[in-house]
């Protein structure tokens, strides 16, 4: 299987007044084409930070210290390192090649714009050339077809529009066009771009199974239910058919029936759009439902990666075992994991899980265990094996 994303040695630190927080230590991760990779772990273990690092959105005072994130944009070109390309380069990738669905859909939508405006914005930002092409076709059709009186009146305007849209197709970000699109009245000549973006928006909203997408484009976020909002957010993420979708706990704030619908939707879209998904969750049940492979994180590093069936049938890392035991079952007392999550300011030396591990050895206190492949596709970072 082809690799889509390869993270090597990713280390993120936060320089706070209290000291250096070692948020991520040496994260190694591969994500293949057309697969769903699940990232599970407790709150604060670095799942979301891993996702934000991929988009280079770590908020200050956080810094990506070292590592590389190689991303295969398409099959013809060499993979690029997302951590070293320019600010403009990463901005062009965000939203068009890699996009993200946030945990709280009601917070991820801007309250002062309609859903249609917000989704069109993404399309206008990244698919200008395509919009120009569609607009040009519309103008050409008008020029060719409309007969008689109206056509003689409007013809000069249409000809001007055609010139502009040809420009848009040739050089969508040229200085000249930027100036034109700022001038009052003149920018009205470019209205067809918005119109076409609106049409694409409606079709994308239809893709995410929203009834009556036409009406939804005119609604504000607060007029929607949680499930609808999350669909709109997913539509926004999918608006430019990205190759890689990061879903950061997209169903956590939804109730169970909606959750099932959203999971089904993501599964269907993944197959249809041939993209990969990085699915972040703390719910092992959801991960089992949707993922092909799962990585378990603890205190800023990965401790086990395996195919989903492997992981649940045969967990190897003591932390994974404890996590699976802690899943609540009907009629049983829940098992909690003894001890608490280590202080990220002063993480324990050696394996970070050793203070809570029942089978910790002398070696665990001194050295950090490395990832090793025990069975094909099953990686564990533990000295027990």
């Amino acid at each position: 299987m082809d690799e889509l994303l390869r993270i090597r040695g990713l280390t993120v630190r936060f320089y706070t007044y209290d000291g250096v927080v070692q948020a991520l230590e040496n994260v190694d991760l591969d994500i293949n084409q057309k697969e769903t990779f699940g990232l599970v772990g407790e709150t604060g273990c670095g799942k979301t930070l891993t996702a934000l690092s991929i988009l280079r959105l770590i908020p200050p005072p956080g810094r990506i210290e070292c590592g590389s994130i190689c991303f295969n944009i398409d099959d013809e070109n060499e993979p690029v390192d997302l951590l070293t390309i320019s600010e403009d380069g990463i901005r062009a990738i965000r939203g068009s090649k890699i996009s993200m669905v946030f945990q709280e859909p009601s917070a991820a939508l801007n309250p002062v714009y309609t859903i249609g405006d917000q989704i069109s914005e993404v399309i206008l930002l990244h698919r200008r050339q395509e919009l120009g092409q569609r607009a040009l076709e519309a103008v050409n059709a008008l020029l060719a077809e409309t007969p008689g009186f109206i056509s003689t009146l409007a013809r000069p305007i249409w000809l001007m529009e055609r010139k502009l849209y040809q420009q848009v197709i040739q050089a969508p970000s040229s200085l000249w066009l930027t100036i034109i699109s700022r001038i009052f009245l003149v920018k009205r000549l470019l209205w067809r771009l918005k119109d076409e973006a609106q049409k694409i928006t409606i079709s994308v909203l239809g893709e995410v199974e929203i009834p009556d997408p036409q009406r939804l484009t005119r609604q504000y976020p607060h007029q929607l239910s949680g499930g609808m909002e999350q669909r709109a957010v997913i539509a926004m993420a999918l608006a430019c058919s990205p190759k890689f979708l990061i879903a950061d706990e997209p169903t956590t704030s939804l109730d169970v029936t909606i959750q099932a619908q959203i999971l089904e939707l993501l599964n269907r879209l993944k197959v249809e759009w041939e993209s990969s998904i990085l699915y972040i969750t703390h719910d092992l049940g959801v991960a089992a439902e949707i993922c092909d492979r799962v990585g378990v994180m603890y205190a800023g590093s990965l401790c086990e990666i395996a195919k989903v069936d492997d992981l649940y049938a045969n967990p190897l890392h003591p932390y994974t075992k404890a996590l699976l035991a802690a899943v609540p079952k009907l009629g049983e007392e829940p098992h909690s994991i003894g001890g608490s999550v280590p202080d990220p300011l002063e993480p324990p030396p050696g394996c970070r899980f050793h203070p809570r591990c029942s089978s910790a050895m002398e070696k665990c206190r001194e050295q950090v265990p490395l990832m090793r492949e025990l069975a094909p596709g099953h990686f564990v970072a533990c000295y027990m094996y």
Partner: protein
Amino acid sequence: MTELRFWLYQARKNPLSLVGIAIVLIFVIIAILAPFLAPPPEGHIDAYQIPRDGYSPTPKPPSQEYKFGTTQGQYDIFYGVIWGTRSAFKVGLLVIGMVLVIGILLGSIAGYFGGLVDEIIMRITDIFMAFPPLILAMAITVALGPSLNSVIIALTLVSWPIYTRLIRGDILTVREEDYVEAARGVGSSHLRIIARHILPNSIYPTLIMASLDIGAVVLSAAALSFLGLGAPEGYADWGQMIQFSRNWIVGPPGNPLAYWYTVTIPGLFILFFVLGWNLLGDAFRDILDPRLAKR
């Protein structure tokens, strides 16, 4: 269309805001129609210069020719207050306009980027805010030489720090919202994020304060004029009209209200102007803020 209906609905719900809108509208009409309400006499060079009827220091009561009477130095009160409306709008709108531009620019830079830039801009606002505003405005006007333009510059320099801080504070809260992160996540540039996602969500308190402040600015300008630091003598300006009447607040013994028109008429104009803008500010709050009660 539905927006407009919603606005009208909001305005009807709060009759005081309608009063505010009406008062400000009346003043706008007065300012626009000034040349017709109080036509400058033949051969008058500067229309803002109040025509005078002789040089006698004693005010004359309202008459056929001078509807509101004349004040000290025989300046026509009617002409003064009508053309003074234009000066009031000029001062209020110019000062608030400039303050908004400076405040939005510096406030969003400080709030959005944070760090050292924020620190520098905020310390400069601290320096300005360390002085009592009216005293600082007086000092600046004196330094620039008394005139209406100096008053405008002085009041701008005194008020921008408050606006910068207000906008910065609102931007700081909105900056952390998820939708800003989401906008960054779809590849928007800094400028686009500030202009399209942060400002529309954080500008309302500032706009409301601006409309409340137009009245306050006119009041401060009147205070400066009253102290003799504003417009040159004879210039149509409400503050100056009140200055003229300073010696005539109380009339001669036995008839204390003899010169009531010299104080009361310009005073009423200032009062209603400030009241109108204050009520309008409240109306703006009800109408503009989409987060308020739009269900």
